[in-house]
């Protein structure tokens, strides 16, 4: 009982004196109390036209623990000056503080500029209200640093965050090899930003995009040609190199947009290992996959290695034929050069004889 009383007194004193110890703009601290008059009630919510419910509950603790722990409501909702609000407060503009050269001490980067150039930023600029602003991915009140595992944009959570809008893709991704590996907590596996980029997300039809048809192989090769990464999982690394030597790869490198790239055959968000019956490159599914571009593709398309390297012994008859031709050409060259020199020597002798 005495302990409780002591605590109560301390809390009371703290409540009364702490604001004085750490002085803050008077109007701001008052406005927090004013805000919580309504927003502090858990049942404070609004029924929207489309039947959705917008939860409007927020207290002084809402920002606690987030990167904005020391901020108050009007630091971000600075357009609110009247209670009740005459019109709906505008969506928060993060660039109010987060710009290069700000004096707030807010992290400074060009990411916001990159965002405005991205597919999302451009959609916003076109007036698409469904397109995401900063807070749609980073969170509104509970913003944590990206490195914090609890952050909405942390490696383990970002796919779900993207999936809020890109639902179908998220469902596909969760079943894919990358999605399942991500769920297992494997550190090297890519989540959405691994391929699409973070702020610089562009439409796949935009030549700037990392997933533009002629950039796909390069993007995949960032991990898939690395022996260091692939060695851990027992995956071959020369797939990208052999692709680049193939007809598909050559046409792709010279700018063909209709030719197959990695994802044309392996899938995009639904990439699965070849032994998975649902995989697009499972031998049973290969005719169908090839058939997307080669009408009438039959099981013959699956007979023989697809990523074949004529310089490797494992390629069997392909390797031996290439090696045979290589040595045939070398020997022919040597024989011809020898014959030419002999012939010239003999010719000189003949001429001398005639004289």
């Amino acid at each position, binding site marked *: 009982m005495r302990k409780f009383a002591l605590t109560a007194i301390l809390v009371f004193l703290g409540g009364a004196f702490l604001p004085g110890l750490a002085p803050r703009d008077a109007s701001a601290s008052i406005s927090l109390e004013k805000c919580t008059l309504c927003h502090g009630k858990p049942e404070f919510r609004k029924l929207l036209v489309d039947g959705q419910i917008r939860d409007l509950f927020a207290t002084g603790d809402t920002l606690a623990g987030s990167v904005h722990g020391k901020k108050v409501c009007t630091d971000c909702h600075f357009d609110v000056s009247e209670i009740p609000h005459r019109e709906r407060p505008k969506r928060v503009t993060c660039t109010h503080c987060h710009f290069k050269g700000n004096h707030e001490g807010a992290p400074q980067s060009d990411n916001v500029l990159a965002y405005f150039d991205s597919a999302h930023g451009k959609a916003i600029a076109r007036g698409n209200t469904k397109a995401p602003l900063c807070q749609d991915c980073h969170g509104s009140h509970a913003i944590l640093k990206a490195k914090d595992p609890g952050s909405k944009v942390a490696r383990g959570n970002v796919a779900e965050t993207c999936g809020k809008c890109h639902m179908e893709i998220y469902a596909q991704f969760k079943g894919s090899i990358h999605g399942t590996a991500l769920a297992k907590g494997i550190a090297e596996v890519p989540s959405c930003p691994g391929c699409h980029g973070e702020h610089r997300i562009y439409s796949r039809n935009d030549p700037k995009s990392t997933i533009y048809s002629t950039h796909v192989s390069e993007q995949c090769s960032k991990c898939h040609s690395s022996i260091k990464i692939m060695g851990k999982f027992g995956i071959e690394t020369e797939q990208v190199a052999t692709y680049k030597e193939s007809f598909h790869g*050559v*046409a792709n*490198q*010279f*700018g*063909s947009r209709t030719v197959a790239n990695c994802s044309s055959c392996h899938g995009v968000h639904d990439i699965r290992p070849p032994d998975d019956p649902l995989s697009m490159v499972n031998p049973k599914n290969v005719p169908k996959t090839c058939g997307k571009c*080669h*009408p*009438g*593709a*039959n099981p*013959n*398309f*699956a*007979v*023989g*290695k*697809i990523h*074949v390297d*004529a310089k490797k012994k494992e390629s*069997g*008859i*392909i390797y031996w*034929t*290439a090696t045979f*031709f*290589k040595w*045939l*050409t070398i020997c*022919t*060259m040597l024989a*011809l*050069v020898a014959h*030419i020199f*002999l*012939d*010239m*020597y*003999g*010719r*000189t*002798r*003949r*001429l001398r004889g005639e004289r």
Partner: protein
Amino acid sequence: MSHADLAAGKVIRMSLLFRIQHLLLTVLLTVLAVTGFALMYHGNSLAQWLIRLEGGVQNRGIVHRVAAVLLMANLVYHAFYMLFSREGKPELRQLFFTKRDFDDFFQSLRYNLGTAKEYPRFGKYGYKEKFQYWGATGGVLLIAMSGFMLWAEEFSMLFFPKFVLDLALIIHGYQGLLGFVLLYLWHIYNVHLHPSVFPMNPSWITGKVSAEWLRREHPLEYEKLKGEGLL
């Protein structure tokens, strides 16, 4: 052979029709080599420049195939001409390899090494010409077959598994390289760099060679023409 030719000591070696076929072969093989090797060595900067010159990979393929079809037409025409025409039939007969060619080859080797006294005496076509002719024909046929397989890849795959097409690609490219090497080392030597013709045997343009050259390099043909009273 006209009297003027005889007076000037000239002998016809390639008739107009053969010269046209040869010229077509030269131009088309060059186009095929330039477009083909550009693709085969696409990592090379010269090859990339060539592909851009040819209008990108798509156009490169079209140029390559047009040249290939023209070459096939030339080849088919040549085959018919050699098999059925009055001029072609005896030419073909003289082009077949006989045991004598092997003897000639070894004799020339021995002569060049200094163990034989006599250099072999050739007819109109010696072993060098015959090797060139049949080598080129065989090579072109092999390249043509693998090329058509790759061109009609969806049709080929109705009958052949994928690795056969991989094989066709290997054969097409490497046989092309081998043919190119042969052409350069053998043909360029025989008709350009060989001391008896340097800088060039003119017969592919004028159709004629000198009777003196014929007497030295193809004595049997020279004697035959003389026996027929054509010289």
